[in-house]
């Protein structure tokens, strides 16, 4: 797995110590409770992934100062912004850039005036603010659009102006709350490229809330998974998405996660009897809970022979490892093929190309034989 170098850097940096953004906070809102503790380095991007209602936006709102914090503290660049021990720093003095799904450009101001708003509000003279803002518009690829009103810009252009406006205010940290979600594919790609380009030059910690693993892969070095108001995993992207800790992350990352018990340092036996062996050098403790992960497309499928019966392979051992048969529960179209969801425990997704799907007798209820190479399986202890 390509996670190694990233993982080492992560271990060396460690959390909190000299991180530019440290948030340890609890938020109570109606019946909802958010508890999170995270640290982001000065030039790091931390992707926050999670299902709807998991508290992602609340987390960003609390750091930005829009949502009151019940307990804990927030530090950016060593400056204490808020928490239970001190009076919160008021919104205008926080210097936290927040860019959401909607650009929310001031409708009565031109693109340039929108960008210049932050510098002007912070006391910069009119002329300097305009010069600086024109520079920002140029950097987001919108030179020549200075005098346009927001209504005269496309959605993608508006979001780029919003990014320029956020950055022109010289934030000490940048929070991005699904900034690509409302854009069409092309505009989203453009925005992603922009954020990626500016990421390093800015030298400020960035938090990127998204439900798209692609955003995390392209932009972030680390990922945190938020579920029901709690951080369930945090680490280098490749590890978090590459070997998901929960079924939700597995679904998000588009991989199959099978949980069970270690038979030996590289083999996991699932509750249903399925045995998965990894070719990688693993160090599972025999008898301890462990999980195996593989990609749906890594599974080889053929029609089951006459001897095959639904369920796990009869013989557990060398011959039966990484082989099982299962009943098709449902079928979904994928790009260039078909996704098979099997009914038996463990439920897994298997992707087959269209050509192969045609050869198989694919319909719900069909029994198929599956096999996955040990080289395509990774195993990990369950924590």
């Amino acid at each position, binding site marked *: 797995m390509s996670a190694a170098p990233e993982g080492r850097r992560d271990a060396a940096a460690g959390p909190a110590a000299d991180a530019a953004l440290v948030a340890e906070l609890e938020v109570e809102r109606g019946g909802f409770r958010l508890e999170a503790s995270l640290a982001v380095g000065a030039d790091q991007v931390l992707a926050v992934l999670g299902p709807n209602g998991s508290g992602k936006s609340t987390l960003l709102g609390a750091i*930005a*100062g*829009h949502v009151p914090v019940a307990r804990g503290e927030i530090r950016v660049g060593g400056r204490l912004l808020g928490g239970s021990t001190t009076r919160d720093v008021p*919104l*205008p*003095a*926080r*210097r*936290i*850039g*927040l860019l959401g799904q909607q650009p*929310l450009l*001031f*409708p*009565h*101001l031109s693109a340039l005036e929108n960008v210049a*708003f*932050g510098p002007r*509000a*912070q006391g910069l003279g009119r002329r300097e603010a305009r010069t600086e803002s024109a520079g920002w518009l140029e950097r987001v690829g919108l030179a020549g659009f200075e005098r346009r009103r927001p209504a005269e810009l496309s959605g993608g252009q508006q979001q780029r102006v919003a990014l320029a*406006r*956020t950055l022109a*205010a010289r934030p000490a940290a940048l929070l991005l709350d699904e900034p690509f979600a409302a854009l069409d594919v092309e505009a989203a790609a453009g925005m992603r490229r922009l954020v990626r380009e500016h990421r390093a030059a800015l030298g400020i910690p960035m938090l990127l809330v998204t439900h798209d693993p692609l955003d995390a892969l392209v932009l972030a070095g680390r990922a945190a998974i938020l579920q029901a108001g709690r951080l369930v995993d945090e680490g280098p992207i490749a590890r978090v998405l590459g070997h998901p800790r929960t079924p939700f992350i597995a679904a998000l990352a588009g991989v199959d996660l099978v949980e069970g018990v270690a038979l030996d340092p590289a083999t996991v036996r699932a509750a249903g009897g399925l045995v998965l062996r990894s070719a990688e050098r693993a160090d599972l403790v025999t008898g301890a809970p462990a999980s195996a992960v593989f990609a749906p497309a890594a599974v080889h499928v053929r029609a089951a022979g006459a001897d095959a019966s639904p369920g796990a392979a009869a013989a557990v051992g060398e011959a039966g490892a990484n082989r099982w048969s299962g009943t098709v529960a449902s079928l979904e179209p994928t790009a260039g093929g078909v996704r098979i969801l099997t009914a038996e425990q463990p439920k897994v997704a298997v992707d087959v190309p269209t050509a192969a799907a045609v050869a198989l007798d694919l319909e719900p209820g069909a029994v198929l034989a599956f096999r996955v190479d040990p080289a395509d399986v990774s195993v990990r202890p369950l924590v």
Partner: protein
Amino acid sequence: MTRVEHAPRGVAVAGRFPGWLYVPAGLGAAVLLLPLLALLLRLDWAGVPAAITSPEAVQALGLSLATASWATLACVVLGVPLALVIARSSRGTAAALRTLVTLPLVLPPLVGGIALLSLLGRTGLLGEALAVWGIRIPFTTAAVVIAQVFVALPFLVISVEGALRTAGTRFEGVAAGLGAGRFTVFRRITLPLVAPGLLAGAVLCFARALGEFGATALFAGNAAGTTRTMPLAIYTAFNGAGVSEDTAIALSLMLIAVAIAVLVLMRGWRADAPR
């Protein structure tokens, strides 16, 4: 009045409606327009120039325009903050405040005049104290302005409050996040966002102040030159001994013309004016 306040925009989009609705619609238009038409028909056009250029008429019009302008200014200065407070308070408080602000709209202006006298009259709640300082408000031009503010303020508050609710607080949050203090946010974001509503409210305010009669008559009286505004001049001409009704009609025409001019001007300024 209600016609101008918030014209329903849904009508054209919603499309078809039962044809017989044209009957009450036509009757409604007739109720509004026929009296004005009758007024025009009764007019002795030959006497109009003399009637509207008479010193009394010019004086009354000047006083009306001046007092209505001051009243509108006062309504803007007091009404915008009041609207802001209502728009930003909790639901219960906002509902209570809104009811209070709307009260002058549904009260007969005469009652407003009596109420103002009770407050600022010679023996009134505040009037007595003011009298000690030598300040006497009733039956002065200031009283005319106060009476007009009393009846016109609700229009401005309702209009601006609606605009504030529509604008929401999201832009203000963004502005604060960019480093703008409260006053900067108010001046550069909140006010420009509600500008169309503010303009519409101010125009309605002005029109209402221009037509104010009842509260003015009671609280400010009918002294030529200081408190005799156009409506009072019309009333005087209509009831006055020896003055012909034609003068009253000519003056009414003048007031109608000014009101129409104001409304048309507003339409011209507002790009998003209801059609």
